[in-house]
Protein backbone atom coordinates (compact mmCIF):
# COMPACT_ATOMS: atom_id res chain seq x y z
CA UNK A 1 0.00 0.00 0.00
CA UNK A 2 1.32 3.42 -0.94
CA UNK A 3 2.26 6.00 1.64
CA UNK A 4 -0.59 8.21 0.37
CA UNK A 5 -3.14 5.43 0.80
CA UNK A 6 -1.88 4.81 4.33
CA UNK A 7 -2.22 8.46 5.30
CA UNK A 8 -5.64 8.84 3.67
CA UNK A 9 -6.93 5.83 5.57
CA UNK A 10 -5.57 7.12 8.85
CA UNK A 11 -7.41 10.44 8.36
CA UNK A 12 -10.63 8.60 7.57
CA UNK A 13 -10.27 6.38 10.64
CA UNK A 14 -9.56 9.35 12.92
CA UNK A 15 -12.31 11.60 11.60
CA UNK A 16 -15.11 9.08 11.24
CA UNK A 17 -14.22 6.97 14.26
CA UNK A 18 -14.52 3.73 12.29
CA UNK A 19 -12.61 0.44 12.53
CA UNK A 20 -9.50 0.24 10.35
CA UNK A 21 -10.67 -2.96 8.61
CA UNK A 22 -13.73 -1.15 7.22
CA UNK A 23 -11.61 1.51 5.55
CA UNK A 24 -10.98 -0.26 2.24
CA UNK A 25 -10.59 1.48 -1.09
CA UNK A 26 -14.10 0.63 -2.23
CA UNK A 27 -15.71 1.96 0.94
CA UNK A 28 -18.12 4.87 0.42
CA UNK A 29 -17.81 7.56 3.06
CA UNK A 30 -21.56 8.03 3.33
CA UNK A 31 -22.96 4.57 2.54
CA UNK A 32 -20.35 2.39 4.26
CA UNK A 33 -18.57 4.53 6.84
CA UNK A 34 -21.47 6.47 8.37
CA UNK A 35 -20.40 9.94 7.26
CA UNK A 36 -22.88 12.73 6.59
CA UNK A 37 -22.46 15.60 4.14
CA UNK A 38 -20.65 17.76 6.73
CA UNK A 39 -18.28 14.91 7.58
CA UNK A 40 -17.26 14.66 3.94
CA UNK A 41 -16.57 18.40 3.79
CA UNK A 42 -14.32 18.06 6.82
CA UNK A 43 -12.59 15.00 5.38
CA UNK A 44 -11.72 16.90 2.23
CA UNK A 45 -10.33 19.73 4.36
CA UNK A 46 -8.23 17.24 6.29
CA UNK A 47 -6.86 15.80 3.03
CA UNK A 48 -5.97 19.30 1.84
CA UNK A 49 -4.18 20.03 5.09
CA UNK A 50 -2.31 16.72 5.22
CA UNK A 51 -1.14 16.71 1.61
CA UNK A 52 -0.87 20.44 0.91
CA UNK A 53 -3.17 20.19 -2.10
CA UNK A 54 -6.23 22.21 -3.01
CA UNK A 55 -9.36 20.22 -3.74
CA UNK A 56 -11.90 22.49 -5.50
CA UNK A 57 -15.55 22.03 -4.54
CA UNK A 58 -16.53 20.39 -7.84
CA UNK A 59 -13.69 17.91 -7.51
CA UNK A 60 -14.61 17.28 -3.87
CA UNK A 61 -18.12 16.35 -4.97
CA UNK A 62 -16.72 13.45 -6.97
CA UNK A 63 -14.66 12.04 -4.08
CA UNK A 64 -17.14 9.53 -2.73
CA UNK A 65 -14.95 6.61 -1.65
CA UNK A 66 -11.62 6.05 0.08
CA UNK A 67 -10.20 4.99 -3.29
CA UNK A 68 -11.46 8.19 -4.97
CA UNK A 69 -9.54 10.25 -2.40
CA UNK A 70 -6.33 8.25 -2.81
CA UNK A 71 -6.50 8.52 -6.61
CA UNK A 72 -7.18 12.26 -6.54
CA UNK A 73 -4.25 12.95 -4.23
CA UNK A 74 -1.85 10.67 -6.08
CA UNK A 75 -2.74 12.49 -9.30
CA UNK A 76 -2.45 15.93 -7.70
CA UNK A 77 0.96 15.11 -6.31
CA UNK A 78 2.26 13.35 -9.44
Amino acid at each position, binding site marked *: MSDIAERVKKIVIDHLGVDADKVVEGASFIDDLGADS*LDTVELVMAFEEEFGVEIPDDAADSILTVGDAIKFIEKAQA
Partner: protein
Amino acid sequence: MRRVVITGTGMVSPLGCGTEVTWKRLLSGHNGARKVTEFEVEDLPAQIACRIPFGDGSDGTFNADDWMEPKEQRKVDPFIVYGMAAAEMALNDAGWHPQTDEDQIATGVLIGSGIGGLEGIVEAGYTLKEKGPRRISPFFIPGRLINLISGQVSIRHKLRGPNHSVVTACSTGAHAIGDASRLIALGDADVMVAGGAESPISRIALAGFAACRALSTQHNDDPQKASRPYDRDRDGFVMGEGAGIVILEELEHAKARGAKIYAEVVGYGLSGDAFHITAPSEDGDGAFRCMTMALKRAGLTAADLDYINAHGTSTMADTIELGAVERLVGNAASKISMSSTKSAIGHLLGAAGAVEAIFATLAIRDNIAPPTLNLDNPDVETAIDLVPHKARSRDINVALSNSFGFGGTNASLILRRYEA
Protein backbone atom coordinates in the same frame (compact mmCIF):
# COMPACT_ATOMS: atom_id res chain seq x y z
CA MET B 1 -53.77 25.77 33.30
CA ARG B 2 -52.41 22.25 33.49
CA ARG B 3 -50.20 21.29 36.44
CA VAL B 4 -46.50 20.56 35.84
CA VAL B 5 -44.29 18.27 37.90
CA ILE B 6 -40.63 17.27 37.84
CA THR B 7 -40.18 13.57 37.16
CA GLY B 8 -36.48 13.32 36.41
CA THR B 9 -33.20 15.12 37.03
CA GLY B 10 -29.70 14.93 35.59
CA MET B 11 -26.60 16.87 36.44
CA VAL B 12 -22.93 17.32 35.73
CA SER B 13 -21.39 19.57 38.37
CA PRO B 14 -18.07 20.47 39.95
CA LEU B 15 -19.02 18.06 42.74
CA GLY B 16 -19.58 15.12 40.43
CA CYS B 17 -21.32 13.48 37.51
CA GLY B 18 -24.88 12.76 38.58
CA THR B 19 -27.58 14.36 40.71
CA GLU B 20 -27.31 12.11 43.74
CA VAL B 21 -23.52 12.16 44.04
CA THR B 22 -23.54 15.95 43.73
CA TRP B 23 -26.31 16.31 46.31
CA LYS B 24 -24.61 14.00 48.80
CA ARG B 25 -21.34 15.89 48.50
CA LEU B 26 -23.10 19.26 48.66
CA LEU B 27 -24.82 18.33 51.91
CA SER B 28 -21.58 17.08 53.44
CA GLY B 29 -19.78 20.35 52.71
CA HIS B 30 -17.59 19.45 49.72
CA ASN B 31 -16.15 22.37 47.77
CA GLY B 32 -15.44 22.18 44.04
CA ALA B 33 -12.97 25.05 43.73
CA ARG B 34 -9.34 24.61 42.76
CA LYS B 35 -6.49 26.25 40.93
CA VAL B 36 -6.85 25.96 37.15
CA THR B 37 -4.03 23.78 35.80
CA GLU B 38 -5.26 22.95 32.30
CA PHE B 39 -4.03 26.18 30.75
CA GLU B 40 -1.80 29.14 31.55
CA VAL B 41 -3.31 31.32 34.28
CA GLU B 42 -0.34 33.15 35.77
CA ASP B 43 -1.11 36.34 33.84
CA LEU B 44 -4.82 36.25 34.76
CA PRO B 45 -6.26 38.08 37.76
CA ALA B 46 -8.54 35.12 38.54
CA GLN B 47 -6.71 31.76 38.48
CA ILE B 48 -9.26 29.46 40.08
CA ALA B 49 -12.48 27.74 39.05
CA CYS B 50 -14.90 25.00 40.03
CA ARG B 51 -14.11 22.33 37.47
CA ILE B 52 -15.97 19.11 36.83
CA PRO B 53 -14.04 16.15 38.25
CA PHE B 54 -12.87 14.54 35.01
CA GLY B 55 -12.04 10.83 35.17
CA ASP B 56 -12.99 7.36 34.01
CA GLY B 57 -16.60 7.68 35.16
CA SER B 58 -16.14 5.86 38.45
CA ASP B 59 -16.62 7.48 41.87
CA GLY B 60 -18.66 10.37 40.47
CA THR B 61 -16.10 11.45 37.90
CA PHE B 62 -17.17 12.63 34.47
CA ASN B 63 -16.05 10.65 31.46
CA ALA B 64 -17.27 12.37 28.29
CA ASP B 65 -16.95 9.09 26.35
CA ASP B 66 -19.77 7.64 28.46
CA TRP B 67 -22.19 10.18 26.98
CA MET B 68 -21.05 11.01 23.46
CA GLU B 69 -18.84 9.20 20.96
CA PRO B 70 -15.33 10.68 20.74
CA LYS B 71 -15.81 11.51 17.07
CA GLU B 72 -18.97 13.47 17.93
CA GLN B 73 -17.33 15.24 20.90
CA ARG B 74 -14.63 16.52 18.58
CA LYS B 75 -17.24 18.49 16.63
CA VAL B 76 -18.76 20.38 19.56
CA ASP B 77 -17.73 22.53 22.49
CA PRO B 78 -17.97 20.86 25.90
CA PHE B 79 -21.19 22.64 26.92
CA ILE B 80 -23.03 20.44 24.42
CA VAL B 81 -21.41 17.28 25.83
CA TYR B 82 -22.37 18.28 29.38
CA GLY B 83 -25.92 19.00 28.26
CA MET B 84 -26.19 15.69 26.42
CA ALA B 85 -24.95 13.84 29.51
CA ALA B 86 -27.33 15.56 31.92
CA ALA B 87 -30.28 15.14 29.53
CA GLU B 88 -29.65 11.40 29.18
CA MET B 89 -29.39 11.05 32.97
CA ALA B 90 -32.65 12.95 33.42
CA LEU B 91 -34.54 10.90 30.82
CA ASN B 92 -33.26 7.70 32.38
CA ASP B 93 -34.22 8.94 35.83
CA ALA B 94 -37.73 9.72 34.60
CA GLY B 95 -37.95 6.43 32.72
CA TRP B 96 -39.20 8.36 29.68
CA HIS B 97 -38.02 6.98 26.34
CA PRO B 98 -40.78 7.81 23.86
CA GLN B 99 -41.12 5.32 21.01
CA THR B 100 -44.46 6.12 19.39
CA ASP B 101 -45.07 9.07 17.07
CA GLU B 102 -47.55 10.48 19.55
CA ASP B 103 -45.17 10.34 22.51
CA GLN B 104 -42.23 11.71 20.55
CA ILE B 105 -44.27 14.65 19.27
CA ALA B 106 -45.57 15.36 22.78
CA THR B 107 -42.00 15.67 24.12
CA GLY B 108 -39.97 18.82 23.59
CA VAL B 109 -36.59 20.21 24.57
CA LEU B 110 -35.71 23.63 25.96
CA ILE B 111 -32.09 23.81 27.06
CA GLY B 112 -30.06 27.02 27.13
CA SER B 113 -26.59 28.28 27.76
CA GLY B 114 -25.36 31.68 28.81
CA ILE B 115 -22.44 31.90 26.44
CA GLY B 116 -22.23 28.71 24.39
CA GLY B 117 -19.06 27.70 22.59
CA LEU B 118 -16.71 30.49 23.52
CA GLU B 119 -13.50 28.47 23.31
CA GLY B 120 -14.37 27.02 19.92
CA ILE B 121 -15.02 30.50 18.55
CA VAL B 122 -11.63 31.66 19.81
CA GLU B 123 -9.89 28.71 18.14
CA ALA B 124 -11.74 29.24 14.87
CA GLY B 125 -10.66 32.87 14.99
CA TYR B 126 -7.03 31.76 15.11
CA THR B 127 -7.62 29.31 12.27
CA LEU B 128 -9.25 32.01 10.15
CA LYS B 129 -6.37 34.38 10.73
CA GLU B 130 -3.53 31.89 10.33
CA LYS B 131 -4.86 29.46 7.71
CA GLY B 132 -7.70 31.28 5.99
CA PRO B 133 -11.41 30.64 5.47
CA ARG B 134 -10.97 27.29 3.69
CA ARG B 135 -9.81 25.76 6.97
CA ILE B 136 -12.96 26.65 8.93
CA SER B 137 -14.64 23.34 9.78
CA PRO B 138 -18.22 22.64 8.69
CA PHE B 139 -18.77 21.75 12.36
CA PHE B 140 -17.63 25.15 13.59
CA ILE B 141 -21.11 26.71 13.58
CA PRO B 142 -23.27 23.73 14.67
CA GLY B 143 -20.75 22.88 17.40
CA ARG B 144 -20.96 26.31 19.01
CA LEU B 145 -24.61 27.42 18.68
CA ILE B 146 -26.42 27.49 21.99
CA ASN B 147 -29.63 25.87 20.74
CA LEU B 148 -27.63 22.90 19.47
CA ILE B 149 -27.90 21.28 22.90
CA SER B 150 -31.65 21.14 22.35
CA GLY B 151 -31.02 20.04 18.77
CA GLN B 152 -28.58 17.27 19.67
CA VAL B 153 -30.75 16.00 22.53
CA SER B 154 -33.80 15.89 20.27
CA ILE B 155 -31.91 13.96 17.59
CA ARG B 156 -30.40 11.46 20.03
CA HIS B 157 -33.68 10.72 21.82
CA LYS B 158 -36.16 11.35 18.97
CA LEU B 159 -37.99 14.14 20.79
CA ARG B 160 -40.07 15.88 18.15
CA GLY B 161 -42.07 18.41 20.17
CA PRO B 162 -41.19 22.09 20.70
CA ASN B 163 -37.44 22.60 20.25
CA HIS B 164 -36.32 25.79 21.85
CA SER B 165 -33.55 27.48 23.76
CA VAL B 166 -32.92 30.32 26.18
CA VAL B 167 -30.03 32.78 26.41
CA THR B 168 -30.37 35.07 29.42
CA ALA B 169 -26.87 34.97 30.92
CA CYS B 170 -26.99 33.67 34.48
CA SER B 171 -30.79 33.40 34.50
CA THR B 172 -30.77 30.97 31.56
CA GLY B 173 -31.35 27.73 33.46
CA ALA B 174 -34.23 29.13 35.50
CA HIS B 175 -35.87 30.76 32.47
CA ALA B 176 -35.56 27.47 30.55
CA ILE B 177 -37.39 25.54 33.26
CA GLY B 178 -39.98 28.28 33.69
CA ASP B 179 -40.67 28.68 29.98
CA ALA B 180 -40.77 24.93 29.40
CA SER B 181 -43.26 24.57 32.25
CA ARG B 182 -45.46 27.13 30.51
CA LEU B 183 -45.35 25.15 27.26
CA ILE B 184 -46.70 22.17 29.17
CA ALA B 185 -49.23 24.23 31.16
CA LEU B 186 -50.59 25.69 27.92
CA GLY B 187 -50.80 22.29 26.25
CA ASP B 188 -48.05 22.65 23.65
CA ALA B 189 -46.22 19.63 25.06
CA ASP B 190 -46.78 16.94 27.69
CA VAL B 191 -43.13 16.43 28.56
CA MET B 192 -40.20 18.86 28.31
CA VAL B 193 -36.50 18.26 28.75
CA ALA B 194 -35.34 21.57 30.22
CA GLY B 195 -32.32 23.22 31.78
CA GLY B 196 -28.96 24.73 31.01
CA ALA B 197 -25.34 23.85 30.29
CA GLU B 198 -22.13 25.84 30.30
CA SER B 199 -18.42 25.27 29.67
CA PRO B 200 -16.87 28.69 30.17
CA ILE B 201 -13.61 27.86 31.91
CA SER B 202 -11.03 29.24 29.51
CA ARG B 203 -8.49 32.03 29.35
CA ILE B 204 -10.82 34.31 27.43
CA ALA B 205 -13.76 33.90 29.82
CA LEU B 206 -11.63 34.33 32.94
CA ALA B 207 -10.10 37.44 31.36
CA GLY B 208 -13.47 38.79 30.28
CA PHE B 209 -15.36 38.27 33.53
CA ALA B 210 -12.39 39.58 35.51
CA ALA B 211 -12.44 42.70 33.34
CA CYS B 212 -16.10 43.13 34.38
CA ARG B 213 -14.80 42.98 37.99
CA ALA B 214 -17.11 40.02 38.60
CA LEU B 215 -14.59 37.33 39.63
CA SER B 216 -12.85 36.61 42.92
CA THR B 217 -9.18 37.53 42.56
CA GLN B 218 -8.01 37.62 46.18
CA HIS B 219 -8.13 33.90 46.93
CA ASN B 220 -5.99 32.43 44.15
CA ASP B 221 -3.81 30.71 46.76
CA ASP B 222 -6.75 29.40 48.76
CA PRO B 223 -9.41 28.53 46.16
CA GLN B 224 -11.82 26.82 48.53
CA LYS B 225 -12.20 30.04 50.49
CA ALA B 226 -12.98 32.14 47.43
CA SER B 227 -16.74 31.65 47.02
CA ARG B 228 -18.18 33.08 50.24
CA PRO B 229 -21.66 34.53 49.68
CA TYR B 230 -22.83 37.10 52.28
CA ASP B 231 -19.42 37.06 53.97
CA ARG B 232 -17.72 40.39 54.51
CA ASP B 233 -14.54 39.13 52.76
CA ARG B 234 -16.25 38.07 49.54
CA ASP B 235 -14.71 39.61 46.44
CA GLY B 236 -16.39 38.08 43.40
CA PHE B 237 -17.71 34.81 42.03
CA VAL B 238 -15.80 31.65 41.18
CA MET B 239 -16.50 30.36 37.69
CA GLY B 240 -18.03 26.90 37.47
CA GLU B 241 -19.07 24.55 34.66
CA GLY B 242 -21.56 21.78 34.07
CA ALA B 243 -25.20 21.18 33.25
CA GLY B 244 -28.51 20.67 34.99
CA ILE B 245 -31.53 19.17 33.25
CA VAL B 246 -34.99 18.31 34.54
CA ILE B 247 -37.81 16.35 32.99
CA LEU B 248 -40.99 18.40 33.32
CA GLU B 249 -44.24 16.58 32.84
CA GLU B 250 -47.92 17.33 32.85
CA LEU B 251 -49.31 15.95 36.10
CA GLU B 252 -51.90 13.55 34.65
CA HIS B 253 -49.37 12.28 32.11
CA ALA B 254 -46.94 11.52 34.92
CA LYS B 255 -49.59 9.84 37.06
CA ALA B 256 -50.89 7.74 34.18
CA ARG B 257 -47.52 6.13 33.68
CA GLY B 258 -46.76 5.84 37.39
CA ALA B 259 -43.79 8.19 37.24
CA LYS B 260 -41.88 9.22 40.35
CA ILE B 261 -42.76 12.84 41.17
CA TYR B 262 -40.08 14.96 42.80
CA ALA B 263 -42.03 18.21 43.17
CA GLU B 264 -44.50 20.48 41.42
CA VAL B 265 -43.46 23.63 39.57
CA VAL B 266 -46.02 26.08 40.93
CA GLY B 267 -44.53 29.51 40.40
CA TYR B 268 -42.47 31.37 37.85
CA GLY B 269 -41.63 35.06 37.80
CA LEU B 270 -39.65 37.21 35.37
CA SER B 271 -38.57 40.81 35.44
CA GLY B 272 -36.08 43.31 34.08
CA ASP B 273 -34.05 45.78 36.12
CA ALA B 274 -33.75 48.35 33.31
CA PHE B 275 -30.75 49.70 35.19
CA HIS B 276 -27.22 48.56 34.19
CA ILE B 277 -25.57 45.99 31.92
CA THR B 278 -23.75 44.11 34.69
CA ALA B 279 -24.88 45.52 38.05
CA PRO B 280 -28.27 44.87 39.66
CA SER B 281 -30.35 47.88 40.64
CA GLU B 282 -29.29 48.84 44.12
CA ASP B 283 -32.79 48.83 45.56
CA GLY B 284 -33.26 45.19 44.50
CA ASP B 285 -36.56 46.10 42.93
CA GLY B 286 -36.13 43.80 39.92
CA ALA B 287 -35.50 40.82 42.18
CA PHE B 288 -38.40 41.79 44.42
CA ARG B 289 -40.88 42.05 41.55
CA CYS B 290 -39.63 38.78 40.09
CA MET B 291 -40.18 36.85 43.33
CA THR B 292 -43.54 38.59 43.86
CA MET B 293 -44.71 37.50 40.42
CA ALA B 294 -43.67 33.91 41.11
CA LEU B 295 -45.58 33.87 44.40
CA LYS B 296 -48.67 35.31 42.72
CA ARG B 297 -48.54 32.67 40.02
CA ALA B 298 -48.17 29.99 42.69
CA GLY B 299 -51.10 31.37 44.68
CA LEU B 300 -48.85 31.50 47.74
CA THR B 301 -47.70 34.18 50.14
CA ALA B 302 -44.15 34.86 51.29
CA ALA B 303 -44.99 33.22 54.63
CA ASP B 304 -45.42 29.92 52.76
CA LEU B 305 -41.75 29.87 51.74
CA ASP B 306 -39.51 27.45 53.64
CA TYR B 307 -36.28 27.47 51.65
CA ILE B 308 -34.72 29.86 49.15
CA ASN B 309 -31.83 28.84 46.94
CA ALA B 310 -30.33 32.28 46.47
CA HIS B 311 -28.62 33.61 43.41
CA GLY B 312 -25.89 34.63 45.91
CA THR B 313 -22.82 34.78 43.69
CA SER B 314 -20.35 35.98 46.36
CA THR B 315 -20.31 39.49 44.93
CA MET B 316 -21.46 42.82 46.33
CA ALA B 317 -24.88 42.02 44.86
CA ASP B 318 -25.54 39.37 47.54
CA THR B 319 -26.81 41.95 49.99
CA ILE B 320 -29.06 43.50 47.34
CA GLU B 321 -30.78 40.14 46.85
CA LEU B 322 -30.94 39.62 50.60
CA GLY B 323 -32.56 43.03 51.00
CA ALA B 324 -35.13 42.17 48.33
CA VAL B 325 -35.93 38.88 50.07
CA GLU B 326 -36.30 40.63 53.43
CA ARG B 327 -38.68 43.11 51.84
CA LEU B 328 -40.63 40.21 50.34
CA VAL B 329 -40.94 38.04 53.44
CA GLY B 330 -41.28 40.71 56.13
CA ASN B 331 -42.10 39.16 59.49
CA ALA B 332 -41.76 35.65 58.11
CA ALA B 333 -37.97 36.10 57.81
CA SER B 334 -37.16 34.05 60.89
CA LYS B 335 -38.87 30.92 59.57
CA ILE B 336 -37.02 30.93 56.24
CA SER B 337 -33.72 29.28 55.39
CA MET B 338 -31.82 30.73 52.43
CA SER B 339 -28.48 29.44 51.19
CA SER B 340 -26.18 29.95 48.26
CA THR B 341 -24.92 26.67 46.88
CA LYS B 342 -22.55 28.67 44.69
CA SER B 343 -20.34 28.59 47.78
CA ALA B 344 -19.68 24.92 46.92
CA ILE B 345 -20.03 24.62 43.15
CA GLY B 346 -19.18 28.13 41.98
CA HIS B 347 -21.23 30.00 39.42
CA LEU B 348 -22.33 27.78 36.53
CA LEU B 349 -23.64 30.81 34.62
CA GLY B 350 -26.27 29.52 32.16
CA ALA B 351 -26.47 26.18 33.97
CA ALA B 352 -26.70 27.72 37.45
CA GLY B 353 -30.46 28.25 37.55
CA ALA B 354 -31.17 24.68 36.47
CA VAL B 355 -28.69 23.03 38.82
CA GLU B 356 -29.95 25.18 41.68
CA ALA B 357 -33.61 24.44 40.89
CA ILE B 358 -32.69 20.76 41.21
CA PHE B 359 -31.09 21.47 44.59
CA ALA B 360 -34.28 23.26 45.68
CA THR B 361 -36.27 20.22 44.51
CA LEU B 362 -34.09 17.85 46.51
CA ALA B 363 -34.30 20.15 49.54
CA ILE B 364 -38.06 19.51 49.44
CA ARG B 365 -37.63 15.77 48.87
CA ASP B 366 -35.21 15.30 51.75
CA ASN B 367 -36.33 18.13 54.07
CA ILE B 368 -32.85 19.59 54.27
CA ALA B 369 -31.32 22.94 53.33
CA PRO B 370 -27.84 22.73 51.78
CA PRO B 371 -25.22 24.97 53.38
CA THR B 372 -23.63 28.29 52.53
CA LEU B 373 -19.93 27.51 52.89
CA ASN B 374 -17.36 30.05 54.09
CA LEU B 375 -19.93 32.28 55.74
CA ASP B 376 -17.63 33.17 58.63
CA ASN B 377 -18.55 36.81 59.17
CA PRO B 378 -21.93 37.83 57.71
CA ASP B 379 -21.74 41.21 56.05
CA VAL B 380 -25.15 42.25 57.35
CA GLU B 381 -27.44 41.10 60.09
CA THR B 382 -30.60 39.30 59.08
CA ALA B 383 -33.31 37.26 60.73
CA ILE B 384 -33.15 34.88 57.77
CA ASP B 385 -31.20 31.67 58.40
CA LEU B 386 -28.38 31.74 55.83
CA VAL B 387 -27.44 28.11 56.66
CA PRO B 388 -23.77 28.82 57.39
CA HIS B 389 -21.22 26.01 56.99
CA LYS B 390 -23.51 23.02 57.61
CA ALA B 391 -26.68 21.68 55.99
CA ARG B 392 -29.80 22.10 58.11
CA SER B 393 -32.54 19.49 58.47
CA ARG B 394 -35.94 21.17 58.63
CA ASP B 395 -39.39 20.94 57.11
CA ILE B 396 -39.33 22.17 53.52
CA ASN B 397 -42.53 22.06 51.50
CA VAL B 398 -42.10 25.16 49.37
CA ALA B 399 -38.79 26.31 47.86
CA LEU B 400 -37.90 29.30 45.72
CA SER B 401 -34.86 29.49 43.46
CA ASN B 402 -33.56 32.85 42.25
CA SER B 403 -31.40 33.62 39.21
CA PHE B 404 -30.29 37.05 38.05
CA GLY B 405 -28.25 37.79 34.94
CA PHE B 406 -26.22 40.44 33.17
CA GLY B 407 -28.51 42.81 31.36
CA GLY B 408 -30.76 42.97 34.41
CA THR B 409 -32.70 39.79 33.61
CA ASN B 410 -34.32 38.06 36.59
CA ALA B 411 -36.06 34.71 37.05
CA SER B 412 -37.61 33.04 40.10
CA LEU B 413 -38.99 29.52 40.27
CA ILE B 414 -41.19 28.17 43.04
CA LEU B 415 -41.38 24.44 43.69
CA ARG B 416 -43.77 22.71 46.05
CA ARG B 417 -43.95 19.24 47.52
CA TYR B 418 -46.40 17.34 45.34
CA GLU B 419 -49.79 16.78 46.88
CA ALA B 420 -52.64 15.21 44.96
